[in-house]
């Protein structure tokens, strides 16, 4: 048969993956601390496509809630989960019944000295992550950075795991913590919609091309003059 068809099938599968990625980004337009995925094409590698996370900052909005924390600039919160250490940019925290600072999954947010215990009093968090309650300073929020952030893998539930070396996980030196603020999703709707239209049309063109090759094949098979 005509070998061109196989390339076209590849092309439409890629457009489908692209659509899946865009659709997921758009579904997470209201997810706190969400970072959009991009489907990239890399001709240099034998593997032609890959997804990468775009870590550009999302808008930081004021909430007035004393357990909300946003990270201005790079860095991740370190979270202790039952399945090990994970990282997150979602700073919508709350207090557990035993007085621990936890996130929405009930997992403990880590400070410089481990899990953070709070009494439930007047909470203030400085720009450097220093936590004070009723005016007396306690632990400091632990914000980490990575030598190779591209090795962060998304886990769902707003979590990332780091696939690189342990020594490449660094405690962030310069942090800018905003208390009573939250970082929203960095998905830009207009951009994603344009990409979706683009992906859709590319998919359509490929299908047209498949039809064309089909017509040519049909002509070759059925035209008596070519016999």
């Amino acid at each position, binding site marked *: 048969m005509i070998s061109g068809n196989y390339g076209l099938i590849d092309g439409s599968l890629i457009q*489908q*993956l692209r*659509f*899946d*990625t865009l*659709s*997921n*980004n*758009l*579904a*997470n*337009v*209201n*997810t*706190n601390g969400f970072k959009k*995925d991009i489907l990239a094409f890399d001709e240099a*590698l*034998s*593997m032609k*496509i*890959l*997804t*990468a*996370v775009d870590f550009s900052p999302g808008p930081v909005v004021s*909430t*007035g*809630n004393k*357990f909300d924390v946003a990270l201005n600039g790079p860095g991740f919160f370190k979270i202790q989960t039952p399945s090990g250490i994970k990282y997150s940019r*979602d700073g*919508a925290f*709350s*207090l*557990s*019944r*035993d*007085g621990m600072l936890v996130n*929405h*999954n009930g997992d403990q947010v880590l400070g410089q000295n481990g899990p953070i215990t709070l009494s*439930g*009093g007047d909470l203030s968090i400085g720009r450097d992550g220093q936590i004070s309650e*009723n005016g007396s300073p306690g632990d400091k929020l632990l914000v980490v950075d990575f030598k*190779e952030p*591209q*090795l962060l*893998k*998304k*886990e*769902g*539930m*707003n979590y990332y795991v780091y*696939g690189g070396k342990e020594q490449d996980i660094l405690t962030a030196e310069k942090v800018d913590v905003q208390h009573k603020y939250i970082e929203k999703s960095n998905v830009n*709707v207009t951009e*994603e919609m344009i990409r*979706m239209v683009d992906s*859709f049309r590319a*998919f*359509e063109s490929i*299908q047209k091309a498949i*039809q064309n090759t*089909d017509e040519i094949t049909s002509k070759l098979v059925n035209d008596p003059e070519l016999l």
Partner: protein
Amino acid sequence: MLRGMWSAASGMSSNQMMIDVISNNLANVNTVGFKKSRPDFQDLMYQTLSPGGSRTSSGDQIPTGIQIGMGAMPVGVQKMFMQGDFKGTQNELDLAIEGRGFFKVISNEEEVYTRAGNFKLDSEGNICTPNGDKLQPAMSVPTADAVTIKIDKAGTVSVINPSGQATVLGVIELYSFANPAGLYSMGHNLFRASDASGEAIAGTPGSNGMGTIAQGFIEMSNVDVVEEMVAMIMAQRAYEISSKSIQTADNMLQIANNIKR
């Protein structure tokens, strides 16, 4: 079928829930002592089609693999216990809590908690909520004389009879929780302690970080209409966007189906 279609469906249902929460907040914009809720979302799991860090045939390391997300889900609807505005009413049984704490009342023989301080007197002189749930510790105001009720910042309730004699009836206690956001909302402005909130901790108003009581004031709803309207626009548009993803997926499938004529 296309994964993106399911991601979009999850986006639509998440945003639908957001509209539900916002609508309830807006409906309670004039409810005394109402605390607004906020929905928070998370991304769902990721399907890893090719893991990052694997080696190509030429020995290069692929920095990132292919991970396709599966959409969004609501992870929590959290009550936001920020202070509401105070409204002066001159009514002697309107009590507002300035700061932390809840009143305890007995509703259906169960101990429950509220921030709504628009109390009334029942026919026996008990201080109760508009639903008739009695304030704890129970206090009954003598009904024989026309008395004035005086409640100070620390919660001490006294009655002053027509001849100017004051009698102390008792002290209103306030109750706080380690994690008020974890309280179970029962409706009727009432909250029940839950595993997430922890046990109620009793205290006198003004002590140990507990709030104080302001007589003649009520705490209004803490819903900010402008903020809710902005959130509603965001939720509606996000809903619309995800519906567009589904339409796109539908069109793509239609095109694929039309290859074979």
